[in-house]
């Protein structure tokens, strides 16, 4: 007599196999429904009309957070999507450039079950879109490995002298801690050190890009500029809060005209000035944009390295360092940083907030530091507002 259970036992693997096949088929079907269908999987540099590039732009847009802002008419914008649109415009307006755009998106699931790609990649050359792929961002550490792999796969292998630019759009990159930076991967820390580690993959043989644009809040600390200075000749960053409308990208259009002379220093100042003008037009909070000549600021950085390092070590050592105990401030408010070399190699465009405690602050050193909350009045060297 046949054991009534034996059939079900024997058929169980077949059932599982059947279910697995159905799941796989469903997953494939759902993947096929994705809107992110690649335009072209492989670049075709040899095709007609595609030439070597004189300018290389890598743009990483971190859109995995709450990046909403409103204009003065009350219209809502998604900051990362505005930055993406700006980067695409730059790519289309540069006939002599190759442009890599990485849009890091929030992790999402279809029907709460099926993970969707959380990164979009665009590759333009000579003003044309040659590749558009969705990809998976790092699941473990944040070192831009998937982005670097795409960059290496598509970059033009030419021997022409190339001016290289690297742009990062996102929230303030933490100097310590770093958990929660990525909303989709809150347990995965992301710090300046991680960012610098990832930059190595984008620097080609020259080891340094010509210009780095750090479109984040508080990107101008001695530690951040020091760490990123190993990978860039010039850096544009904001010492204070940078409104989510970010740095204006229009200056990057037609680099064949605006950067024809190869004067990266002059170009960086023009970029910073235009970004400053654009922000001050509508923004009531403080606006600060600074340009760093990395080689020329080394003397100052070396002079303050131990002081700043000590501050960071102290905060790292605290059991629960938080914004309750520390706050950002102009380094010029702390006597240890007020050195003759402080302004060397730094060009600052600054306008204070129209309201608030600091509305009468006249200028900014271009360097942002940390201090304990409550020490403001005791250490301030700038002209503090007399509010009444």
């Amino acid at each position, binding site marked *: 007599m046949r054991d009534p259970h034996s059939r079900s036992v024997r058929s169980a693997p077949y059932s599982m196999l059947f279910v697995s096949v159905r799941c796989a088929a469903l997953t494939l079907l759902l993947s096929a429904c994705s809107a992110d269908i690649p335009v072209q999987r492989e670049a075709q540099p040899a095709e007609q009309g595609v030439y070597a590039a004189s300018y290389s732009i890598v743009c990483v847009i971190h859109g995995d957070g709450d990046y909403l802002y409103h204009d003065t008419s009350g219209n*809502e914008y998604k900051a990362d999507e505005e930055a993406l649109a700006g980067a695409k415009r730059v790519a289309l307006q540069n006939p002599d450039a190759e442009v890599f755009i990485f849009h890091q998106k929030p992790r999402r699931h279809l029907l709460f079950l099926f993970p969707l790609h959380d990164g979009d990649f665009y590759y333009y050359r000579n003003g044309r879109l040659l590749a558009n792929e969705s990809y998976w961002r790092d699941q473990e550490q944040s070192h831009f490995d998937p982005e670097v792999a795409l960059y290496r796969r598509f970059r033009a292998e030419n021997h022409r002298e190339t001016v290289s630019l690297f742009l990062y759009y996102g929230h303030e990159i933490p100097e310590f801690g770093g958990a929660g930076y990525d909303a989709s991967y809150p347990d995965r820390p992301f710090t300046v050190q991680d960012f610098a580690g990832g930059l190595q993959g984008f620097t080609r043989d020259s080891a340094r890009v010509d210009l780095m644009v750090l479109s984040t809040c508080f990107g101008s600390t001695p530690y951040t500029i020091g760490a990123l200075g190993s990978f860039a000749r010039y850096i544009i960053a904001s010492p204070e809060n940078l409104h*989510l409308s970010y740095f204006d990208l229009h200056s990057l259009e037609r680099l064949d005209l605006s950067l024809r002379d190869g004067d990266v220093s002059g170009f960086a100042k023009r970029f910073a000035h235009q970004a400053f003008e654009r922000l001050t037009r509508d923004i009531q909070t403080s606006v600060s944009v600074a340009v760093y000549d990395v080689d020329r600021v080394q003397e100052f950085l070396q002079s303050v390295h131990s002081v700043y390092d000590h501050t960071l070590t102290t905060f790292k050592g605290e059991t629960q360092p938080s*914004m309750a105990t520390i706050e950002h401030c102009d380094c010029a408010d702390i006597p240890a940083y007020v050195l003759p070399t402080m302004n060397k190699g730094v060009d600052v465009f600054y306008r204070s907030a129209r*309201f608030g405690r600091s509305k009468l602050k006249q200028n900014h050193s271009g360097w942002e530091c940390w201090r304990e909350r409550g020490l403001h009045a005791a250490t301030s060297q700038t002209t503090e507002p007399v509010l*009444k």
Partner: protein
Amino acid sequence: MTTRIALGSFVMMLLLALPAHAGGKGELQQYFNNAANKVKATVNPSEKRDILNQSMQTMSKALVMVQGSTSISKDDAVGIDLFIAALQEKQDELAGTNGYVRVPDEQLNAFSNYVVQDMEQADQIITISLITLLLIIILIVLLVR
């Protein structure tokens, strides 16, 4: 009954997913943006002040209520403290108290933009967890009604 529970759970998941999609912070920004829009649509300066003051008071009230909850984390409590302090500064400036010069009538529209923009880039909001943000949003909805 089981179908009802399942359907209810699914709807709840969708409802929870909506603010989660916006990170929870979008609703707070929208709240201040709505207040700014009302200010700009109003001609009378004293009404503008009332709108601004009322919006900040309601937000502060919601924050204090959430802070009183035993379920929030220490980090969230710190974030809420800073948020309340930032709102108080703005209320002081609006009223001209605590060392501030009162915001002139002709600058009230600009001040409403300042409040929106400062909140959009406020790091204290960034540190508050999604669950706590949702709690704040729910309380504001209840308080405004």
